[in-house]
């Protein structure tokens, strides 16, 4: 290494603290501006998608196709997961309830857990991983291969033709998948609790029917699943449409969909639970 080069590096090292602060400030400023710009774009995008929603119903064939891709093709993972979650819940619940001599309340525990929380939340997380990521990747690849540009040049709005049907497909599919998840979960708990452990079948179903309220439990669970469906679908179509048109860009967008959707579901679940079930435990 030449003496001159060493001197230059030494001079550079001496400037490091000030340069580092400037560099860090620039980075923070840059990220902040990017985030604001992205937020603004997301808001405009959301409004544009909402404006095109009626079009999704006019293109019913396309929307049904998206319900098939998002909903029907997610059935296997949703049904199998629901069954196993219900079975595990029954085993764990039975073990705890037996300590208090309340093992016949297993049906209540499982049903309330599934209908209020696990059904919408776990189905939402699975939906984000399976269908949300697929929607993002599909739209992102359409952008990368200029299919969206081609559509625009054919005077066809991609928001109406591509985005809106996928958004509606996701919003419609999600509550149905959550309902199926809960149903299979209850069935799994029945298999373990009644058929395997030997809890009385009448007590299992009777207690469940008496404790689960349609308006308070099932409807609130349904509302949660609709909200999660809207969140996951909106994130999925936005990330796909906003993906950089490269292989790396599509990969990043897909990852962002899964991460942002999962975090949104968990955060929204907390907020919704506070509003829906805020009376629970307060008096105690």
């Amino acid at each position, binding site marked *: 290494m030449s003496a001159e080069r060493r001197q230059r590096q030494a001079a550079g090292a001496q400037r490091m603290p000030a340069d580092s602060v400037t560099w860090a400030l620039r980075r923070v400023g840059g990220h902040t501006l990017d985030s604001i710009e992205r937020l603004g774009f997301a808001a405009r995008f959301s409004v544009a998608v909402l404006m095109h929603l009626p079009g999704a119903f006019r293109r019913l064939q396309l929307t049904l196709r998206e319900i098939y891709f998002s909903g029907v093709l997610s059935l296997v993972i949703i049904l199998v997961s629901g069954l196993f979650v219900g079975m595990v819940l029954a085993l764990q619940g039975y073990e705890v309830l037996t300590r208090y001599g309340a093992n016949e309340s297993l049906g209540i525990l499982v049903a309330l857990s599934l209908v209020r929380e696990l059904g919408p939340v776990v189905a939402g997380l699975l939906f984000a991983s399976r269908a949300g990521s697929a929607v993002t990747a599909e739209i992102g690849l359409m952008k990368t291969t200029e299919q969206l540009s*081609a559509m625009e040049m054919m005077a066809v709005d991609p928001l109406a033709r591509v985005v809106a049907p996928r958004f509606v497909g996701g919003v419609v599919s999600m509550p149905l998948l959550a309902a199926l998840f809960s149903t299979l979960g209850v069935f799994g708990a029945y298999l373990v609790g009644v058929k395997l452990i030997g809890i009385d079948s009448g007590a299992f179903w009777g207690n469940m029917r008496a404790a689960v309220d349609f308006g308070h439990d099932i409807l609130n669970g349904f509302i949660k699943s609709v909200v999660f469906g809207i969140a996951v679908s909106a994130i999925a179509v936005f990330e796909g449409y906003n993906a950089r048109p490269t292989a790396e860009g599509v990969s990043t967008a897909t990852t962002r969909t899964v991460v942002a959707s999962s975090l949104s579901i968990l955060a929204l679940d907390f907020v919704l639970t506070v509003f829906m079930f805020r009376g629970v435990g307060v008096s105690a």
Partner: protein
Amino acid sequence: MSVVEPAAVLPTCPTEIAVRMTGVWFGYDRRRPVLRGIDMAIPRGKLVAIMGGSGCGKTTILRLIGGQLRQQSGTITVAGQDVMALDREALFALRRRIGMLFQFGALFTDMSVFENIAFPMREHTELQEELIRDLVLMKLNAVGLRGAAQLRPAELSGGMSRRVALARAIALDPMLVMYDEPFAGLDPISLGIVGQLVRKLNDALGITSVVVTHDIYESLKIVDYIYFVAEGRIVAQGTPDEVRQSKDSFVRQFVDGEPDGPVPFHYPARAVTEEFA
């Protein structure tokens, strides 16, 4: 029943100059303009090539003509209409009269070849299904791929994809067709086929064609006029014969494929002596 003359149904451009660009400046980033005052006039019915090195802004010109990008200054008129002044509805109406072939076809991968070509017809017309079928097969026949109607885009070779995309671009009988690198990545036979199709369709349908390409040899065979773009400006222009005989250093470098010249071999960098000191 009256017989309609073919010329009456062909949607030819109503103005003598199909596309005119005047003093067009554009940059994706305002500090680094891609186009620096482009002036260009593309007459109706002509096949015009826009040539230049990779990244010189050729495709950007097509996107500006199609209204997908908006210039920072200058005007662009297509068939007499100022593209930037059009609202969304009017822009979409104009685009229905423009066909575009993208670099790698941009075929919809979830549809068959037939459905790809039927797509614009289904979106913009109320034609009966039997009529759409006949029209699609006629378009495919024009590009020699009637037998490939039921194939999926993934089953097509690069040349076939380009021809299907060409059939889709002319699906609505446009007045103007824009081709973005139609010859890129094709074998010599496919390249010749696509080149001839571009020329023949231009003449047979009475349309105006703009071809963005860097394939000088194929272009010289088929086009009427060539614009050379470098560093965001038109640096040379002329008919194929004028280009062949040109002494302009840029044109010579481009035609002869010289690695160094007005377009430098090295990307701008510090001096070598300084870099490796």
